[in-house]
C-alpha cells in the first residue's frame, strides 16, 4: 500500500467521523428548534365525533387507558340528580356504590350548597369507558367528555385506539392546539 493510499483512507475516515458528528449536531439543533415552536404532534379526541363506544377503555396499550373523562365545569349544571354519576333508576340519591354509574367509582360528588353538587374525576381510577359521558349527554348539558391525557399517553405513532375508533374521533394535532373542549352550551 502506498503512502498516497494510506493518506486517502485516513482522510476518508476523518471526513466520515466529521460528517456523522455534524449530522447529529444538526438533528439535535433541529429538534430544539421545533420544540421551541411547539411543532410536535399529539393525539386528541374530537368530542363532537366521539360515539362513546367504550373502545378507549379496552384498546389503549396502557392499562388503565391514557384516555380519561374530563369535566368542563363551565357548562356543568351542578345537578343534584346527575346522570353521569347516578345509575338510571337509582333508588336513592346518595353516594352508595349501588347508586353509582361509574364502574370504578372514579367520580367524586361534593355538596356546594343545596341543591348544587360538584363532580370531580379521579383520573387514577378512571378507565375512559365513557359510561358517565353517555348519561351526561343524554340527560344533562354534556359537560363530561373523553380526552387523551398527555401526562400518561405514550403518543404512539400508530395509536391502537385511533385504529379502531368507531367515530373517527382520534386526530393528531400540534401540541399547541391540544386539549379540545366539548361544545359550549
Amino acid at each position, binding site marked *: 500500500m502506498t503512502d498516497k493510499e494510506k493518506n486517502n483512507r485516513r482522510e476518508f475516515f476523518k471526513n466520515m467521523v466529521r460528517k456523522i458528528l455534524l449530522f447529529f449536531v444538526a438533528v439535535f439543533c433541529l429538534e430544539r428548534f421545533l420544540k421551541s415552536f411547539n411543532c410536535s404532534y399529539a393525539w386528541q379526541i374530537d368530542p363532537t365525533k366521539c360515539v*362513546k*363506544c*367504550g*373502545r378507549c*377503555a*379496552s*384498546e389503549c396499550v396502557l392499562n388503565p387507558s391514557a384516555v380519561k373523562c374530563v369535566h368542563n365545569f363551565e357548562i356543568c*349544571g*351542578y*345537578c*343534584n*340528580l*346527575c*346522570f353521569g354519576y347516578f345509575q*338510571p*333508576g337509582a333508588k336513592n*340519591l346518595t353516594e352508595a356504590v349501588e347508586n353509582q*354509574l361509574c*364502574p370504578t367509582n372514579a367520580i367524586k360528588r361534593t355538596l356546594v350548597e343545596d*341543591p*348544587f353538587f360538584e363532580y370531580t374525576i379521579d383520573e387514577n381510577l378512571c378507565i375512559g*369507558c*365513557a*359510561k358517565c359521558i*353517555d*348519561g351526561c349527554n*343524554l*340527560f*344533562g*348539558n354534556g359537560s363530561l367528555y373523553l380526552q387523551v391525557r398527555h401526562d400518561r399517553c405514550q403518543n404512539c405513532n400508530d395509536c391502537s385506539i385511533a*385504529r*379502531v375508533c*368507531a367515530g373517527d374521533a382520534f386526530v393528531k394535532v400540534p401540541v399547541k392546539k391540544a386539549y379540545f373542549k366539548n361544545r359550549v*352550551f
Partner: protein
Amino acid sequence: MFSRRTFIKSCCMGSLSFLFGCKKKQNPPGENPYKYDIGQFRKIDKELILYKEKPSIAVDAEQIRGLAISNDDYLFVIADKKVFIYDSFKNLHHNFSVDETATCLAVGDSKKIYIGVKDHIEIFNQKGEQIDKRAVLSENAQITAIAVNKEHVAVADYGNKQLWLFNKEGKLLRFMGNKRYSEDKQGFVLPSPFFDVDFDKNGDLWANNTGRLRLEQFSIEGVLKSTWGRPSMDIAGFPGCCNPIHFAILPNGDFVTAQKGIILIKLYDHTGRFKGIVAGEDLFQKGATDLKLEVDSQGDIYVIDSIKKRIRVFTLK
C-alpha cells in the same frame, strides 16, 4: 440472475403484502361492555297514549323559536326573524319581519304580540307595526318565555333565574323565585336554559323549576303556593337533570309537559297526577330538544319540532 418473470412476480407479491400490511385492523363490532343502557325506561305502554297526531303545520324557516295561540285559536309562530300568523284553520294568514332574533312570544288581548328579544320585550300589532319597546330587564337577562293574561305580563328570565311580573302598562310589580331574595332560600334551580311560565285560569303563575324537577305555583303577590313533580325514571316522574323543559295549561286546568332526555309529552291533571301520554319518543327525531308547546281552546296540543321545522299537532283520541 433473476428472470424478468421472477422480478415482476416478486414486485407484485411485495406490493400486495405492503397493502395488506397497511390496512387498518378493525375489531368486529362487538357489544360494548360499558354501554349506557336505558332501554327499559324507553318502553311505553301503548294504552297510556291518549292522543293522536293531526296533520302538522309547515313553517318556512330555518329555526322555529316560539309559538303562541290567541283566544280565537290563531296560531303565532316566531322563526328566524319572522312572525308567522295562522288562522284558526291553521292556514297561513300572513307574516311580517322583526329586526332582532327573538327567543319567545306571547299573544295578549286584541292580538297584541309580545316578543322576547334576549333582555327586553317588544310589542307588535297583528299588522307587524311596533307598538312599544319595553326597557331592558337587566344586564344579565335572558328571556326564555312570556305569559300574558288580562291584567299581567309575566316574563321567565333564565339569566337572572327569576320571574318578572309587570302590569299591562309595563310597570314592574315584582320579581319572584330568585334564590337570593326568597325567604326560604329555595328559588329556581335552572341547570340549562329551559324556563317556561304560564298563567292558570285563576290568575296564578306557574313556572318549571327544572333543577328540582317540578312545577311551581306562585300567587300574584309572589308567594309560592304549591309544587308538584318528582325526580324519577318511571313514567309519572321527571328524569334527567332538568325537566320538564316546557309546559302548557289546558282549558280544563290539566297540564301538558315536555321532557328531554327520554323525549315525552305527558298529561297531568291539575293536581299533578299523571294521566297519560300525548306523544312518545318514536314520533320525534333524535336531537329534537326544544319542545316548546301550547294548547288551543279545543284542548289540542301544538309542539315545535325543530328538526322537521314543523308544528306538530295532537288531539285527544
